[in-house]
């Protein structure tokens, strides 16, 4: 059983169809039709198409792809903000699709947290309350909330801003709040959906450094979504390439750079090389 235990998250044959004609689409997909053909025939959008992958404990796993490749949809399956049309999702060996609502809430409160592209912060709460949100929701005492929140606010370099409101902060600072909020809950898994994509390049590099720095001591399992190969190469232990909701390639940064699986991956790699020269 040890190899199973090593996989923190396992995604097995997950399909996600948006639209009302799910069953019809599923048979079409099993017959091997492409995303565009399905859209033309049924009007349904295929978000994720027969995708399987496993993510190891303590690694930074990057999911890459162009917009529309299904990467944001996929990551929302891992905490069930979106439910798959079919397939299995195992976290620590448990199929999270079997959870009822209370069990799912416990899972979200204690095991998995998330950082969003548009931050998703509460505009009517100050920085301290925002960072403490995950703790407050799971019913921890006020003292505990404040203490943990203050700790993580200083860890992401925002001390002195505890009482500030989100509107008063810059984009980079807002995302530090988002990161602190996710870290404060001390979950094993952190999902980061294009967390740094809305930031300008310098701030983005700074945030990447900070994340790597934190990760050195925390050893969380981080699932990081991006459309930027430079970012993926910089922070990922392994990278998964997604296209039209299908997995094209999984590998270490080196494997992706040295042996791209197809033209799609090759194009990303070439752009990366061109930029280096």
């Amino acid at each position, binding site marked *: 059983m040890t190899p199973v235990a090593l996989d923190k998250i396992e995604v097995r044959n997950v399909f996600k169809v948006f639209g009302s004609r799910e069953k019809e689409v599923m048979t079409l997909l099993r017959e091997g039709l492409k995303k565009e053909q399905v859209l033309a025939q049924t009007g349904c959008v295929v978000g994720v198409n027969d995708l399987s992958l496993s993510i190891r404990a303590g690694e930074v796993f990057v999911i890459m792809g162009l917009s529309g490749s299904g990467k944001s949809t996929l990551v929302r399956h891992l905490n069930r903000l979106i439910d798959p049309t079919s397939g299995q999702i195992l976290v620590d060996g448990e199929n999270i699709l079997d959870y009822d609502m209370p069990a799912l809430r416990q*899972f979200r409160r204690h095991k998995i947290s998330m950082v969003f592209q548009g931050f998703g912060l509460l*505009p009517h709460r100050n920085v301290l309350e925002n960072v403490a949100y995950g703790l407050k929701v799971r019913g921890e005492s006020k003292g505990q909330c404040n203490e943990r929140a203050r700790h993580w606010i200083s860890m992401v370099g925002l001390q002195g801003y505890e009482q500030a409101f989100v509107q008063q902060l810059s984009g980079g600072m807002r995302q530090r709040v988002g990161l602190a909020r996710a870290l404060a809950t001390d979950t094993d898994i952190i999902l980061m959906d294009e967390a740094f994509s809305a930031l300008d390049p310098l701030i983005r590099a700074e945030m990447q450094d900070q994340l790597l720095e934190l990760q050195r001591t925390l050893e969380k399992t981080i699932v990081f979504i991006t459309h930027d190969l430079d970012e993926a190469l910089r922070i990922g232990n392994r990278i998964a390439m997604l296209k039209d909701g299908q997995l094209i390639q999984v590998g270490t940064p080196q494997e992706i750079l040295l042996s791209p699986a197809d033209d799609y991956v090759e194009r990303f790699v070439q752009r990366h090389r061109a930029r280096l020269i």
Partner: protein
Amino acid sequence: MFPENLTFSIAGWVNDGVDALVSNYGDVFRHISDTLLWAIINLETLLRLTPWWLMLAIVGAIGWHATRKILSTLLIVGLLFLVGAVGLWDKLMQTLALMMVATVISVLLGIPLGILAARSNRLRAVMMPLLDIMQTMPSFVYLIPVLMLFGLGKVPAIFATVIYAVPPLIRLTDLGLRQVDREVMEAINAFGANPWQQLFGVQLPLAMPSIMAGINQTTMMALSMVVIASMIGARGLGEDVLVGIQTLNVGKGLEAGLAIVILAVVIDRITQAYGRTRHGEQK
């Protein structure tokens, strides 16, 4: 001419229905009516027993708390003083009591219905045309059955006012909740907030400007029903307008009309000020 054999009338049916309602459930309605009347009369007595200067001080304090501006507060107090100065203080208090009860009932009905409408598209689809009807149906049409059930006086006036005044609150509560940022909702969901925590911790606070705009609209519409309310026996400022019309006393009608406007302005300023959000949102 429209062909005779294609016409029909629902009047007979509706009449039978209302008759049955009155004879079978009259007691229930009488009971509701008594309870409501008790609330209105107590509030009215309280407002009328309060010395005028204390009342002005209370309104001034609320005005200051809401607007944080000296000028607005003075204006609010000054306008109310003016109403007292033309001898309409007592009637102002009667109208205020009626309006407050109608507003409280509207809020108790409107906000929960708005929350339900925001949760279910189907319910919303049913509710919206009903709200249109409530807002456009001439109030005399539903006043007839309401009068049959509750008799003349303050209670049917409250009912007519609530029917007319509650739709904007339902609409704006629904709108406010639906406009809460999708990503914020996703985020609090991802941290495991239960429906209760979502609604009271995030959705309602973020929808508050919209809900306050709804309450503002509700109070304004309630005031616009004052004259109709006085036609079915509710006392207050509307009564003076009515008497003004009946006796061709333009001056008296105008005084009472202006007093209604002043009450509207005062309530409008206060509720609008509460609707504006703080937390440094206005940059």
